[in-house]
């Protein structure tokens, strides 16, 4: 599984959880950028080369869904975006309609999340 030099943007207003995910993805061989709200995440996305986004759904001001819509408006096919949610605002089918590559429930199985993200990035890169 090739994950080196791939950069992932982690977005969660729960700072501790964001840090845990950062650590897990770093351990999985990713470069990691993080943001604690949707606004900052979007700015980071615009200014960095991001290969995938993992974002919480419910955040103040700019939600994960809003972030997803903003990013997908510019490029519907890239990068893959995964939603992670405490409560099912939407189901996986709805998330995919918005353009998400997957929806994970908290507490997520982090290894599975890393694996899915890596696979999705590789699929995009191989297209």
């Amino acid at each position: 599984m090739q994950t080196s030099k791939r950069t992932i943007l982690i977005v969660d207003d729960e700072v501790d959880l964001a840090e845990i995910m950062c650590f897990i993805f770093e351990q999985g061989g990713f470069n990691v950028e993080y943001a604690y709200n949707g606004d900052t995440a979007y700015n980071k996305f615009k200014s960095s080369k991001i290969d995938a986004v993992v974002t919480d759904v419910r955040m103040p001001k700019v939600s994960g869904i809003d972030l997803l819509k903003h990013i997908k408006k510019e490029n519907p096919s890239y990068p893959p975006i995964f939603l992670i949610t405490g409560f099912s605002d939407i189901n996986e089918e709805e998330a995919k309609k918005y353009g998400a590559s997957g929806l994970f429930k908290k507490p997520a199985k982090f290894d599975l999340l890393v694996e899915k993200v890596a696979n999705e990035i590789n699929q995009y890169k191989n297209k």
Partner: protein
Amino acid sequence: MERKNLKNKTKNELIELLLSIEEKYADSNAYAAELVSEIHEKNTKLNEAQNELLKSERLRVLNSMIVTYNHEFRNPLAIAMGSLELYTKDKNIKRFEILQISLQRIESLVEKIDELAKNDVSFVNYTDHVEMIDLGKR
């Protein structure tokens, strides 16, 4: 003769009056029975409506409780589980501090929910169409 006629006339009038009263009495009895039946029917419908309202209010509380549970518990739970997972990888004792804070958050939520049983619940909008129990004011 005139007096006899007058007496008969009065007697007839009295009989008519009595018949009229009897008829009205019968009518009023029927009307009263009709009223009693109508009140009974309306009372039954009112009870049914009250039961429906109670059931719907209980469902509202239950649904909001599920949303509250999902929203409030999943984040600290994810942090607690994540901290443990990280500890198994890096053996960093600081993971336990975060784990402890998360468990304290969960404990505090449990206490707030315990309080719900003693007080009226209030609701806040979680999304446009979904309500959750307001734990913030407790």
